[in-house]
């Protein structure tokens, strides 16, 4: 479970202070699929960065799987990020001079897994996204949709508890966007919690719950209700999103 309470994040320069998140509180339960929406500059990406332990916050508490992450060292945060969080980026962020196999291998290297274990995980992840036949292609040899699937494979290979997707369909066409969304739903159905930032209302509607952020605060949310068309999961995602004070 991901639980943020009273989180504030301020970006400071010599001239101005920008309140990216103000007293932000949110709970995301195990197995949920949450869509985060909001206008540009509302704080969606800041929320994702904080959730993904890529940035620190100024005030508040954040517990990931019950662990208070605000007191962790960089080493511990990196380990947690590596083992529990998978990232999917709008611009894919594949490393251009590594082939797809080696790209998917990156997070596994930092987990210090054995060669056989890594290879098995990479092949499985590429199987899931349908890129087994392209594993030795360079990113530049793939279409945008294929690159995004490769980045999903990279996120999946480490078997994360949480998948953070920041505009995952922003750089692909509508057909490919639906395929990516189908893939994310499949992954969620397998038990992985998915938090997705999107501008697309249609995609947001396919999530279990929508969280709308305006000026760094949650302005609206839709409580989680299991959908009829989704098979029952082992986990019981009793997610509660709290409105900011």
């Amino acid at each position, binding site marked *: 479970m991901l639980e943020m309470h009273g989180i504030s994040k301020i970006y400071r320069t010599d001239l101005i202070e920008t309140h990216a998140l103000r007293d932000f509180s949110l709970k995301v339960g195990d197995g949920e699929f949450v869509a985060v929406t909001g206008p540009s500059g509302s704080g969606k990406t800041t929320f994702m960065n904080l959730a993904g332990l890529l940035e620190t916050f100024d005030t508040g508490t954040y517990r990931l799987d019950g662990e208070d992450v605000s007191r962790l060292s960089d080493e511990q945060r990196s380990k947690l*990020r590596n083992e529990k969080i998978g990232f999917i980026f709008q611009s894919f*962020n594949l490393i251009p*001079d590594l082939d797809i196999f080696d790209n998917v291998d*990156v997070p596994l290297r*930092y987990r210090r897994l054995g060669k056989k274990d890594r290879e098995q995980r990479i092949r499985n992840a590429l199987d899931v996204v349908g890129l087994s036949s392209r594993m030795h292609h360079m990113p530049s040899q793939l279409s945008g949709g294929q690159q995004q699937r490769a980045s999903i494979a*990279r996120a999946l290979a480490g078997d994360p508890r949480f998948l953070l997707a920041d505009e995952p369909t922003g750089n692909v066409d509508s057909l490919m966007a639906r395929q990516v969304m189908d893939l994310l739903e499949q992954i969620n159905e397998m038990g992985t919690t998915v938090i997705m930032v999107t501008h697309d209302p249609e995609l947001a509607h396919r999530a279990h719950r929508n969280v709308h952020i305006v000026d760094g605060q949650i302005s609206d949310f839709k409580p989680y209700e299991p959908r009829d068309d989704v098979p029952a999961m082992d986990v019981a995602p009793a997610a509660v999103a709290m409105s900011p004070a």
Partner: protein
Amino acid sequence: MFGYYLHLAFRNLRRNPGLTALMIGAVALGIAVCVMTLTMYRAMSGNPIWWKNDVLYAVTLDAWDPKEPYNEDKPELAPWQLTYRDATALMESDIPKRKLIMHKAIGVLALDGQTVKPERALTRVTTKDFFTMFDVPFQYGGGWTDAADKGPEPVLVLSKKMNDKFFRGENSVGRRIHWDDREFRVVGVLDHWLPLPTFYDVNNGALEEPEDVYIPFGWSVPLELDSAGNTQGWKPEDIETYQEFLASETIWLQMWVELPDAASQQRFQAFIDNYASRQKQAGRFQRPLNNRLTKVDQWLIDNEVVENDDRVLVGLAFAFLAVCLLNTVGLLLAKFLNNAAITGVRRALGASRRQVFFQHLVEVGVISSIGAVLGLAIGGLLLMGLRALYAIDPTDAGGTQALAHVDLTSVVTALALAFFATIAAGLYPAWRIGRIPPAIYLKAQ
């Protein structure tokens, strides 16, 4: 992880070949200049027989011109060579544990009826203690006896190089060889021996290689050998014969003694003082008494083997290395920051700051290793260039040829210097890249 970091390092270096070449070139150039300068400095400033520094003494007496000192820049010093009569008189003392007088000569080595071409060979004409006093290593046989000195007996010792040439490196002890048309018997063959600087005789510069042949000093008079080093005099003398040369005030012989303790040193000092006083009474030694026993380290300073210019040159070489490394720091920073987006991705995927730091440090290590090897090679070429530039006589085996010998110590020093200097230069860029917040690159890439 080291293997993975190494793999990434080579991959990253290949990504920007131009930048990589610049960095390696900067390191290599700095190292090359340092290697060259350090090798020269080491060759000129080291005490190659430091373990006997407290027992070996050069013997000098001041029988020079009463009107002006031998060395106007250093008037306190006595001439560093002796006349034949003074040297042979001092050799009569039995106070030193070991003693020698010597000079350099040139002879031609040849074998009877052999196909090996005769070779002009620098020769040291010396007394028997030369080898034991200076801890000269032998490959075969040894030095000669006191009787061989007095005889004199036709015996000689060959350098390893000459033995390789004339006897193909075999044990030639007992074999016959001609030295200047006179047949000699080989009694010893030296092993590799390269004392730098050649402290025992700085006649023709301190970077001479040791001589090729060694014959008993007793041959000097019967063969009427001239010195192949400096022969100097201060007063006009009619010298028509060799005997007149021996009896003259001409200085041309070097003398060294081994005095194992302070007592023997004091006794020998008293001995040469008495000798000089007696000579003064006889009308010689008209300058104030200045009889010196000089240790090897002081001897090298007195003879200006190490000059301030050399130290300044070493300082400049290190300053040049610092400039090269500063440039490398700038290039590394540019290179690492250019790849900051990829580093951001790695951070997002679980790399800690420490892992990012070590990944980049390994890359720096690869650059430094390649730079060091290249620097050594360039340094070697520069030394060869120096040798070619300063080699006055190409048939002369000595001179600055010794500079070409970059020994293991120099290689290890250069490699360590390159490695640690470049790693030190890479610490900041590697640290800096790890401190960059990854999030700013993830959205923008």
